[in-house]
């Protein structure tokens, strides 16, 4: 298959143990180690490219981009499921997952406090912070 030939000819021998195992288990659907680190399978990245993508996503996520961490985990979902197959990618993906959950917990706790607490908790500052007032004040929704 073209795909496997690509990984053996152009990649380092790291994935070859996976390939050998895969060839042995051709007819078994039981969890052999996956060849592809991404959720797209053969349409996605190879392992080397996957490593650079995972690292870049992880680093860029620190610019207040938890959604990028979430996309990282989604994209490399097979790496999370089979944690022993791609150890280098797994390092970045796990940290992205942890970062996303921490950031989401913080942000949602703040948002819920703001929404539920309301004016009782914050006083007049609430009116200055809530989005629809800010939009009105700055005229953001005036089309013309």
């Amino acid at each position: 298959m073209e795909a496997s030939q690509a990984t053996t000819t152009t990649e380092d021998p790291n994935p070859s143990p996976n390939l050998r195992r895969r060839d042995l288990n051709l007819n078994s659907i039981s969890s052999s180690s996956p060849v592809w680190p991404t959720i797209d399978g053969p349409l996605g990245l190879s392992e080397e490219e996957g490593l650079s993508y995972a690292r870049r996503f992880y680093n860029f996520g620190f610019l207040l981009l938890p959604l990028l961490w979430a996309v990282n985990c989604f994209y490399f979902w097979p790496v999370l499921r089979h944690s022993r197959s791609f150890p280098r990618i797994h390092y970045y993906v796990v940290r992205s997952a942890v970062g996303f959950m921490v950031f989401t917990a913080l942000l949602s706790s703040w948002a819920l406090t703001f929404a539920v607490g309301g004016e009782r908790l914050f006083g007049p500052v609430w009116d200055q912070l809530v989005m629809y007032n800010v939009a009105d004040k700055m005229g953001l929704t005036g089309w013309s």
Partner: protein
Amino acid sequence: MAQNPRPRSVLESLGEEIVRILIPVSICMFMVVILVSILTSDSSSTVSSIATIAYSETTSDTTWDKFVGALLNSLAFVAVVTVVTFVLVLLFYLRCTKFLKLYMGFSAFVVLGFLGGEIALFLIQDFSISIDCVTFLVGLFNFAVVGVLAVFMSKMAIFVTQGYLVVIGMLVAYWFTLLPEWTTWVLLVAMALYDLAAVLLPVGPLRLLVDLAISRDEDIPALVYEARPVSYNDSGTSGGVAQRRVWRERRNPNSNSEANPNLNDNSVLVGNEDRGLSSNPNANDISELNSSVGGDSVASLVRAEEGRAVEEDAELVAPLLDRSMNAARVEGESAASSENLLLEGMGLGSSGAIKLGLGDFIFYSVLVGRAAMYDYMTVYACYLAIIAGLGITLMLLALYQKALPALPVSVMLGVLFYFLTRFLLEIFVVQCSLNLLMF
């Protein structure tokens, strides 16, 4: 194995591939209808944009005035779009691909950030959602940046890219439904005619762009929705093996077997695409292969095309058409100037998957959104008409194997059915319902 695989491949794969294009189109239309239904604005809050420079419609004008005004608006808009498309052809000819990609990313950011933000603000104001500005800004920033990355990078998760393209189409389509009514309808017809001319005429800008891209074996930087290629496992073994279905095309003597990882379309060798597979210069209809053989022998079968010499390169002709759409200026926003989305019509991707340009998504959704502003009955009629037109276009695509404009058939059918439903069917159905004859 000696049979000609081509008719079988068209019949087998057409259903699945049609569905994989119909689903995002339907989702986009559905979301626009929902947005239009929720954010019912009064008739006075229309946008002023490039599409309304010639004439601003008021409710007190006569029918003829409205029609002439709408015609002038549409002609102005089509003229602007033509000029911008020619500029893009010129830039592509001068190989400013980097600039085009940057501009594409920038326009995606503007659409997602500013248009998306505006629509989110509308929703927040309508429902009085008590979200604070910090959370809102962080969320919007995330949404826009990840969207730009999804559109910009060629190897993002397919689902994320497709989702963001549908969202971009939805946002721009909603914005277009804010135009005055007559202008919208005449604009749709004008854009359908422009699309027809620009793709099929030899002097049309989109045709020029496609020919340039084919002759250079290059990728056109554009916002295009590409469906996932349909893969078939004939005997069900070796799960996870991707078998590429190929539209086998006429041979292009200019093509060669060099591995160009950026090839995304036209005369790309199958198996050699930016998905990281090897550059297998021989395209074949893989569904013909008996996949009960092991992995390696499948490859050798792939190499040995049936009845053809191995060094023949059968590649895909997937000429794509581009159409730059000038989504006009958003008043009141400082940073948003006229944006150009480089969009495409319908073509075939390198792996045989169907590509549909984002402009088609947008104009289909504009039609259905405008129909939703009248009644849901017109929505159903227009939706069915558009889907029928899309099916016809896809079949023509399978027949002619070249780039086709996806707008004309669907838009013409949609407009026709809108007016038929509004003026003829509705009276009938309402009277039947009132007299309890039919619901």
